[in-house]
């Protein structure tokens, strides 16, 4: 039982990080129909910022906001430079553009920083553990869960209370009519990217704080997982992204913990098979998008 609870905590921490990343993908996808594969590179940018800020001797409390801000600025710049010119292109055009952006950034990281993994200085407390009712929980896991909860509450409030957030939901449902209301296309799209950058930045800090290192391809795996999570949850649906992120986190962690030793090498295929099975039963995902297929101009 203790082992189970222990692993559940791990699953919440990992699933929360996936959820934040999947949300970042979903926010952009719901508004402009773009699956941004360069989302992972936003994480990497955040990771390097954390590394350089740490190396420069800045306190962690300063480097974390800096790292998150870097991802937001990078996301907005990405939209302005790479995606705005192809905004009216097909989904395929935008997808290929996002691959190009991802690869260009990876090569830049490899050549300008280092192809190898770099250590990131973290406060010692993150690698400590606390005892909670017989469980030993890493502080970094607690931080990850708490940060996820805070971000989800923030996002929910932003989307339901703030004028810009409501406008983003309106634009996701019917972009043309949203523009008729005076909602500027550039504002909501830039807003969506800033939000996705914020989510990627927070996810990156959580990701790095479990690993204490950053490398040029750091963002690839988590964002691939987040993509799976977004599909599992229902592409374009924000609640779906959260559900899918946690579901994937639970699947991965439980398989790693409870699959018999001799089957561990098949862990990933088994995990993905579970995802496929869920999608067979719910082809539109766990929480389908209510507006998918809405007219976009």
């Amino acid at each position, binding site marked *: 039982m203790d082992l189970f609870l222990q692993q559940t905590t791990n699953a919440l921490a990992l699933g929360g990080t996936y959820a934040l990343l999947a949300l970042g993908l979903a926010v952009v996808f719901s508004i402009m129909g773009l699956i941004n594969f360069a989302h992972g590179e936003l994480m990497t940018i955040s990771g390097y910022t954390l590394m350089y800020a740490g190396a420069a001797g800045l306190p962690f409390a300063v480097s974390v906001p800096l790292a998150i801000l870097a991802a937001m600025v990078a996301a907005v710049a990405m939209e302005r430079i790479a995606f705005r010119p192809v905004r009216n292109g097909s989904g395929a055009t935008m997808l290929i553009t996002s691959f190009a952006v991802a690869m260009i950034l990876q090569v830049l990281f490899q050549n300008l920083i280092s192809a190898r993994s770099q250590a990131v200085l973290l406060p010692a407390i993150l690698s400590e553990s606390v005892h909670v009712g017989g469980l030993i929980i890493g502080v970094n896991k607690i931080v990850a869960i708490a940060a996820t909860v805070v971000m989800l509450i923030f996002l929910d409030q932003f989307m339901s209370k703030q004028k810009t957030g409501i406008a983003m*939901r309106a634009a996701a*449902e*019917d972009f*043309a009519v*949203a523009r*008729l*209301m*005076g*909602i500027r296309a550039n504002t909501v799209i830039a807003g969506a990217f800033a939000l996705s950058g914020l989510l990627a930045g927070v996810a990156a800090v959580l990701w790095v704080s479990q690993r204490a290192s950053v490398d040029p391809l750091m963002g690839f795996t988590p964002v691939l997982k987040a993509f799976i999570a977004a599909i599992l949850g229902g592409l374009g649906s924000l609640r779906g992204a959260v559900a899918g992120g946690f579901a994937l986190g639970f699947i991965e962690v439980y398989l790693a913990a409870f699959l018999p030793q001799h089957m561990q090498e098949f862990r990933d295929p088994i995990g993905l098979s579970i995802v496929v099975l869920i999608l067979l039963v719910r082809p539109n995902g766990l929480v389908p998008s209510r507006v998918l297929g809405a007219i976009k101009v």
Partner: protein
Amino acid sequence: MPLLSVSGLQVRYGAVEAVRGVDFEINEGEIVTLLGANGAGKSSTLNALVGLVPVAGGRVVFDGEDITDHAPERLAPMGMTLSPEGRRVFGTLTVEENLRMGAYGITDKAAISAAWERVFDLFPILHERRAQFAGTLSGGQQQMLAVGRALMSGPRLLLLDEPSLGLAPKIVEQVFDLIALLRDQGVTLVVVEQNVGMALEVADRGYVLSGGEITTRGTARELAEAGDLQAAYLGAD
């Protein structure tokens, strides 16, 4: 000076010419109806006026300003807005959020609170249902919301695209009563309709479109007296 003047307006979808050089004028305080069969170019004309489809040729002047190539988001703050065909309320937003979005481009706080009052005054049902998702409203209520949302920006010129489409006859009558009421409140209206009889009853003037061109124009009475209008231009029901 007319409030809106359109000259030589053209709209193309690829090789298809949907609107071929249309000229018309709307004066302040009028209700003008655009009539015509499906595919005559009525909706294309309205969509081109607000920038939802690109203008291929011609000129659109609103209140003395050339708005031919204005992006849609610039028009609501200028005082011109469209309530699109099929209502297109934001179904996943609440009634209140829909209305809030209607005033998105408006910065004058006093004007916004006056607009809330006016819309809830016109449509008490929207006040009652304000916390409900717009997608759960009936067709007639959605039409009220679509018009209410458009009114939130305090338009001087309101374009209504097929406001009676798909509504029960009793509700259709309410919609046309509302159109007359809005005119009395000082709103200038352009109404695209397939319900010719009702449209001519409420309108001051009308234009008949066919094949992307204006084939007949006149006062509502002249058009109504032309009698065979329905058969000649619109394809009899």
